[in-house]
């Protein structure tokens, strides 16, 4: 599972992941937005990420205490 799941680079995956976590500053956000406007692969990957995000959120509701216990 080393290859990117969509036709985008791993760097773009990190950007999209930061996007959904609201971790991009405005210049980075606008740059990514401009690329998303013209790149269908980026938008498809965004939708895939949202789907995973939705299910992970649901999954975490079933396992509410697992994440902060690791040491």
């Amino acid at each position, binding site marked *: *599972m080393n*290859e*990117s*799941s*969509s036709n985008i680079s*791993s760097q773009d*995956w*990190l950007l*999209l*992941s*930061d996007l*959904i*976590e*609201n*971790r*991009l500053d*405005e210049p980075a*956000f*606008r740059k990514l*937005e401009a690329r*998303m*406007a013209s790149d*269908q692969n980026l*938008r*498809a990957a*965004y*939708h*895939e*990420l*949202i*789907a*995973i*995000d*939705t*299910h*992970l*959120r*649901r*999954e*975490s*509701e079933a*396992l*509410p205490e*697992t*994440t*902060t*216990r*690791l*040491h």
Partner: protein
Amino acid sequence: MKDEHFLRLFLKNEDVLRAYARSLLPSWDGVDDVLQEASVVMWKKLSQLEEAEGFLPWAKVIVRLECLKARRKSARESLVFSDEVYALIADEFPESNEESMQQRAQALSKCLSQIDERARAIILAPYSGYGSVKSLAESLNRTENSLYKQIGRLREKLTSCVKQQLPTPTAR
């Protein structure tokens, strides 16, 4: 259409509508409010809906309009997509239904079970409340930034794994 029939349809399609709203809003904040407002609008306009088969596309139009209202409010506090990108994302939302959502959820559970406990805890950290990633980073003696990068990489791997599990692509 009777109220109880509407309620069943709404609950049946709630996860799809939730994902749709999330794709159009800057974060999960506001998704519940949008769905609540949208459900009230749907209930009021129920007479427009002729057949149950048309529920999801009809409901998505209403959710999209409610997201647009929420987006105008959140634009003061968050970075939001331009109208152009917003429209593209809304139009290209993959066709999904309750069955495909369940298949994806099952695939995700299977893929999650294949990663070790630490990685599972890391990828679930953003969903455990405000400050949970920072708290986990501290407990692992790592920076928040490095943990978010790992979360991004794990999301990519999970997405790839889930796609391999699914029988057919759900995106159009």
